[in-house]
């Protein structure tokens, strides 16, 4: 028995043992069937899909060079495909004119990120980078087949996209990218610290090239975006932010999870029909990344937040950056406009600021104020203040009891319940011993 035959058998066994046959084929080709279709109808769907797939051959097999205005670039490591695109800075991206990038103050990124190393970060001298990869798994077997770099160039916003038409073009791509990136002192990504940069680092190493991003001053916008907007927005994915904050809706965009499969199909068949849509997807991601970076800076500069949840989030960002006066103003704004837990949280932050400033009386008043809402966290904070600063254990006990009795135990986080119970027992002991 030859190896060939044994391998074929392996394939048959694999199929036989694992795939439920028709269902797998359907899921692969036309999506899971609706309820109630007969077997005949299900098979017809497959036949129809096969017929659709046989479109005009020339369109199917059009080479990338005919579909995209790019060019082959050659260097000492080989050849790759480069696509360049530019926008005038006066262009609006959703609700934001890109030219606003010129008005961003140099300190904003430091405030946003809370990282002193990013002081004087200049978005106009930054590379906005995003990769499209052959998978999300990470690890050495995942490659970045497309790397897009956006940057301001005079009155233009340019995007250069480095694309490998096949795997052997990767070294040339990386080589050229590294030369290009060396011109920028700053780097902006979205989740790049965890994903794009380590992935590229591995690719550079596999191609025996020096990694150009090792020393980059890097703003990963994902984290500040979460801090600023997570309280209000359900999702902080780039496209959700783009939709919610820039009012931008993409039409006919390729869903990110389909991108690896589209690329594999292209690499095997050379039919580049859908590849331009991946390039467009990547380009939009980069322009949005730049626009959202500008917007985030504007929020911290101008205190743009209006929704009380956003105001509170902004206050936390400012407090983290040690801009105390501004953060207290935003906490007060939250306490005025917000209600319930949010209002109590803002008052607690104010109380804690007052205590740190040495204003014990003011802090106590704020704790009382926050606790009036009946919020268990606020009541706990009040109890601490009463017990330790004002030395009034019986009032503290009352606050703890109010917290435990005001709400059913399931409505309070379990750790807080445990803390409150411990505190109650200790206070009772203390009072018992005193009397």
């Amino acid at each position, binding site marked *: 028995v030859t190896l060939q035959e044994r391998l074929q058998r392996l394939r048959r066994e694999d199929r036989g043992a694992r795939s439920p046959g028709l269902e797998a084929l359907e899921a692969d080709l036309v999506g899971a069937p609706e309820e109630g279709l007969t077997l005949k109808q299900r098979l017809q769907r497959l036949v129809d899909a096969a017929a659709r797939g046989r479109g005009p051959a020339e369109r199917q097999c059009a080479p990338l060079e005919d579909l995209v205005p790019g060019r082959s670039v050659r260097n000492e490591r080989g050849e790759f495909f480069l696509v360049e695109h530019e926008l005038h800075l006066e262009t609006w991206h959703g609700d934001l004119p890109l030219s606003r990038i010129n008005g961003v103050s140099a300190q904003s990124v430091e405030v946003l990120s809370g990282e002193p190393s990013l002081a004087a970060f200049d978005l106009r001298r930054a590379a906005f980078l995003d990769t499209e990869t052959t998978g999300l798994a990470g690890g050495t*077997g995942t490659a970045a087949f497309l790397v897009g770099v956006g940057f301001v160039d005079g009155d233009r916003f340019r995007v250069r996209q480095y694309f490998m038409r096949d795997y052997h073009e990767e070294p040339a791509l990386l080589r050229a990218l590294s030369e290009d990136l060396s011109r920028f002192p700053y780097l902006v990504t979205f989740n790049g610290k965890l994903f794009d940069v380590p992935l590229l680092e591995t690719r550079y190493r596999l191609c025996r090239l020096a990694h150009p991003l090792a020393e980059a001053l890097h703003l990963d916008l994902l984290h500040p975006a979460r801090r600023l907007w997570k309280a209000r927005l359900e999702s902080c994915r780039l496209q959700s932010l783009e939709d919610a904050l820039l009012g931008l809706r993409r039409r006919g965009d390729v869903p990110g999870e389909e991108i690896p499969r589209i690329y594999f199909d292209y690499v095997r068949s050379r039919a580049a029909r859908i590849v331009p849509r991946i390039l467009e997807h990547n380009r939009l991601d980069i322009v949005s990344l730049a626009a959202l970076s500008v917007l985030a800076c504007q929020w911290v500069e101008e205190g743009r937040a209006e929704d009380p949840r956003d105001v509170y989030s902004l206050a936390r960002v400012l407090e983290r950056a040690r801009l105390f006066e501004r953060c207290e103003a935003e906490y007060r704004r939250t306490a005025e406009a917000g209600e319930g837990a949010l209002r109590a949280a803002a008052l607690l932050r104010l109380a804690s600021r007052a205590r740190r400033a040495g204003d014990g009386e003011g802090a106590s008043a704020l704790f009382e104020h926050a606790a009036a809402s009946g919020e268990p966290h606020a009541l706990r904070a009040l109890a601490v203040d009463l017990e330790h600063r004002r030395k009034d254990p019986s009032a503290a006990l009352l606050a703890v009891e109010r917290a435990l009795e005001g709400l059913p135990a399931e409505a309070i986080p379990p750790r807080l319940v445990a803390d409150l119970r411990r505190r109650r027992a200790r206070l009772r002991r203390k009072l018992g011993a005193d009397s």
Partner: protein
Amino acid sequence: VLVANSTPLNQFIAKNPAYFFGAPVERARINPDNLQVLVNHVKCAAFELPFEADERFGGEDLAQILEFLEEEGVLHRSAGRWHWTSESYPADAVSLRSVSSDNFVVQDVTREPRIIAEVDYDSAPSMLHEKAVYILEGRTYFVEKYHHQERRAEVREAEVDYYTDAIRHAKVKILDRFEEEAVALSRRSHGEVHVTSQVVGFKKIKFHTHENVGSGELRMPENEMHTTAYWLTVPREVMAALPFGLEERRDGIVALSYTLGQMAALFLMCDRHDLGVALGDNGQGEARVERGLQRTPAGRSEPAPGLDYEPHVFLYDNYPGGIGLSEPLFRLHGRLLSESLSLVSSCPCRDGCPSCVGPVGEVGSRGKEVALAILRAAVGPAA
């Protein structure tokens, strides 16, 4: 203190303590060139670093495997290197405990349904068939439902004093003989086989005494696999010369297969279920007879063998592709037969018992006698 139970393995050790105390520690056995293992290895390796055109890996022709994986769509050749082109992380699909990554989950429905265990695909029909007793952490569960498509079985805790042993019908077809050799009056071989097996019933066996206390019929999905096997052939002339009836001759082979299966597991230091046992009844390579050994499993009496009966006893690797048990068995052939002979001949029972050739109910009243005669012939006068 070791109290031996009534299985041949325990009885052998009780009678030959030197074997136990003189034996080296257990050897882990895996065949790295098992095609399933090798192909999965190649996938994982390709993920970590693309293969170069002239690289070597494993004992098979790597280029062919790489081409196969390209056809499968997980590798892609670009400028002489093979790149991983799948979104998945291949090592995720490799199980360290079994050859195939497909598995069944065991769901305890005694209270809120919850998953309590996983069972690999190939063992599922024999361990999770309906009415089976599933044992986990000393607790016994009764299998209520077996869902093949969903790869799931529902079990409920139950206090029972027996366990179940599936009866499997196995049909073995010889695909390739790697080595074959006459030894005394028998023949030893090893090679590649195709095994079609189906769980057709089960026995209820009492804990501790291993008494058979009942049985049931089943019709589980057929399972096909290619694997490697060692087999013993008793030549036609040897069988014909035995002073026994035709039915009795087959009983003797059934009895012999019971002993060989148990002893082989002992010598290989593997689990008894790592080896499948099947019988063949002609030289054509195709064989059918059940392992599980009810003499006439409900409604399935085999016709008596003919005068040209030339039985094979197959001991096959019970894992797709084989895990490398067969070649060592081929080498151990002489010892396997002579130790089996000494176990059966020294067993004080009259007509067979669970400690040697299996109980009388399964091997017939003269099974032991015939098995002994065959063993003597197979071992030859030297022993």
